[in-house]
């Protein structure tokens, strides 16, 4: 009996021996420590006294066992009096005092709480993993060592265009771009041999519809406890959008580089936000004489400018725009509010010489934020030189014109003074010495004086005439003006039996200056009198017609006419006379033509010798 007590008390497991009244006969050290009974004298005490929380179901089990039953449980949870949970594996069976008589029960328990908690935790993390796997936006798959898709998530199916079943019938080798397969397989091999813990690569997968897609593949290898490779876990991330953008960027950059280097006479310099030069093209090297290695990342944009020009611009900016800038920001200050700025500057070459440029500075923005500047400049020396030359030519011409005008006025003024004196003196002479008036010599003197005065009057007309009178144009009633002119030279016409026929439409108005219009009409009427044919009843018919914004005033006569082949090119010249007529005024048509042109019109002429002449005067039609 004692031996069995000793056996029990020294057993390595948690084991206790009870009598028929459920009082402790013996308990192992493990039992005592498992149930927190250190220092408690339990031998001889009832189990139910030691653990008052033991319920009726347990007591029933105990009773069954005291009657010969064996009760076992792989795991059971107990709520202890202190509130903690305890997971136990247990075995309760009777012990026999002799062949037939039961002496009590032996309880064997094993505390499996730690193992049980670990199990529970594993379950939780597995379900978490499943959740991640299923709902992940990234494609995740378990792949066999041979490459078969063992388990795939929805994101992966979606990305590759296959259903789960279809994908699981394939291997990754079958849907990898041929150019990427070798690299992938090499990495797989490294992984299996344990050279790498995982690998990552950019590769192309074949979409179900036949096109390739870019992805980042991350693979790790799962091994069993013995270190044998089991399967791969692969993550597949879609990077097509990223690839597209990168591709566009590369394309843009290569184009830009092409531009940068092709412009051998255009300076293209980029700078960062501090103005430090970050690129310097061949054109900039050619124009400025620096090598790009001298400039890149060390010199600033403003260093190729003239300090005084920058300072002047700085003052301008602060005065005009109220922008306070430090020296270095002068070139870029305006770009805070506008996309680019174009101005003329002078650049300074490495050797200190200067040349004018037209410079456009553009802000390079990334998502609205300025990340740098691009300064594109063209050498405008030649343009500037030509501009200066033209300016000086214009200055010379302007001076010459002013001198000519001055000269014309002086000539007309001085001639006028002397001619005026001569004519006055002759008049006085005739008054004082009336008896010499009959002398032919004095008659000729007087005639010459008259002619001189007349010539000077014409010259004055020419000198005074403005090339344009647009600002003083008025709306004039044409019929009235013709009527007035007919009346004013009526006496002269009467002397020579010339008839004027005014057929001008009395509804018409033209743009004109009164004095000019009077002079024009009188000139043509006077011509009609002067060049009348003596052998027929002379007339001048004045008629009008409207033609494309103009009123055409026709002066038609039946006079002696002109041979247009001979006179066409000199008809309107200064001092050209075509008839043997004694009082021919060549200047008349010249002045008339200029007056008509000053009014924005023109003159056409048709004439046949011994039939007559038609002058067509185009004047601007004013609608009333």
């Amino acid at each position, binding site marked *: 009996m004692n031996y069995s007590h000793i056996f029990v008390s020294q057993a390595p497991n948690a084991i206790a021996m009870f009598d028929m009244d459920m009082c402790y006969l013996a308990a192992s050290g493990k039992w005592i420590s498992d149930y927190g009974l250190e220092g408690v004298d339990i031998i001889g005490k009832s189990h139910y006294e030691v653990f008052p929380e033991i319920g009726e179901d347990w007591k029933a089990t105990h009773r069954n066992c005291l009657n010969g039953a064996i009760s076992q449980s792989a795991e059971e949870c107990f709520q202890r009096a202190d509130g903690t949970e305890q997971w136990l594996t247990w075995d309760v069976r009777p012990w026999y005092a002799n062949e037939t008589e039961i002496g009590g029960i032996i309880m064997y328990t094993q505390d499996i709480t730690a193992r049980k908690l670990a199990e529970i935790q594993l379950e939780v993390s597995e379900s978490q993993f499943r959740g991640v796997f299923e709902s992940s936006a990234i494609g995740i798959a378990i792949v066999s060592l041979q490459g078969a898709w063992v388990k795939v998530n929805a994101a992966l199916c979606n990305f590759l265009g296959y259903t789960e079943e279809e994908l699981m019938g394939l291997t990754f080798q079958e849907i990898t771009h041929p150019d990427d397969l070798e690299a992938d397989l090499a990495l797989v091999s490294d992984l299996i041999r344990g050279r790498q813990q995982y690998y990552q690569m950019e590769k192309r997968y074949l979409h179900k519809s036949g096109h390739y897609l870019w992805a980042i593949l991350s693979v790790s290898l799962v091994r069993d406890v013995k270190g044998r490779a089991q399967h791969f876990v692969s993550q597949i991330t879609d990077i097509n959008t990223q690839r597209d953008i990168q591709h566009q960027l590369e394309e843009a950059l290569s184009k830009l580089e092409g531009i940068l280097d092709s412009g051998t006479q255009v300076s293209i310099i980029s700078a960062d936000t501090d103005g430090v030069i970050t690129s310097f093209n061949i054109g900039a090297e050619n124009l400025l004489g620096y090598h790009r290695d001298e400039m890149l990342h060390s010199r600033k944009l403003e260093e190729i400018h003239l300090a005084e020009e920058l300072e002047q611009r700085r003052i301008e900016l602060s005065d005009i725009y109220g922008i306070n800038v430090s020296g270095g920001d002068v070139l870029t200050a305006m770009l805070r509010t506008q996309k680019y700025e174009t101005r003329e500057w002078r650049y300074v070459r490495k050797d200190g010489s200067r040349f004018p440029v037209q410079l456009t500075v553009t802000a390079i923005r990334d998502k609205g934020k300025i990340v740098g500047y691009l300064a594109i400049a063209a050498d405008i020396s030649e343009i500037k030189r030509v501009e200066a030359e033209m300016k000086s030519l214009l200055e010379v011409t302007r001076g010459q014109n002013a001198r000519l005008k001055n000269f014309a006025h002086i000539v007309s003024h001085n001639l006028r*003074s002397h001619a005026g004196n001569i004519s*006055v003196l002759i008049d*006085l002479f005739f008054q004082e010495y009336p008896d010499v008036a009959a002398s032919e010599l004095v008659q000729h003197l007087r005639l010459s004086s008259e002619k001189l005065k007349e010539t000077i009057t014409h010259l*004055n007309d020419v000198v005074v005439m403005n090339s344009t009178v647009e600002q003083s144009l008025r709306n004039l009633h044409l019929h009235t003006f013709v009527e007035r002119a007919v009346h004013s030279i009526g006496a002269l016409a009467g002397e020579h039996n010339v008839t004027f026929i005014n057929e001008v439409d009395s509804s018409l108005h033209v743009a004109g200056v009164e004095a000019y219009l009077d002079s024009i009409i009188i000139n043509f009427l006077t011509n009609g009198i002067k060049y009348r044919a003596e052998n027929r009843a002379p007339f001048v018919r004045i008629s009008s017609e409207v033609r494309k914004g103009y009123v055409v005033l026709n002066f038609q006569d039946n006079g002696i006419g002109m041979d247009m082949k001979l006179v066409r090119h000199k008809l309107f010249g200064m001092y050209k006379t075509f008839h043997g007529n004694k009082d021919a005024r060549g200047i008349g048509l010249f002045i008339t033509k200029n007056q008509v042109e000053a009014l924005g019109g023109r003159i056409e002429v048709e004439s046949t010798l011994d039939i007559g002449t038609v002058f067509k005067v185009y004047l601007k039609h004013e609608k009333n």
Partner: protein
Amino acid sequence: MRKIDVACIVDDDPIYIFATRKIMKMAGFCNSFLVFHNGKEALDNLQAIIKSGSQVPDIILLDLNMPIMDGWQFLDEFVKVQHDKVITIYIVTSSIDPDDIKRAKSYEMVNNYVIKPVTEKKLQEILHDFQAS
């Protein structure tokens, strides 16, 4: 009816002065003449005359182009000379420059602009205007 007592000619051209005096006499234009050969001479003498108060001209026929002091310079100085008598000024010139004509109109004391040669007819018109004023 007002009659011109003293007429003043300011001109550097002796032939013009000779002819004009002759015509004035024939036309009975005025009682006496004052003749000056440039603006400076006219200004200095007229200032003294106005100060003394006798022989102050009723009318001045002023040329523009003259040596020493031209007609414009004379006008600019003469407007500053204080005088009680109304003095009518005619610009008499050979200049037909529209700028001169426009400029003459800007002087309040300039009555009119006469283009040479001065004939008896033109003097009669001036006389008529004077009498009407």
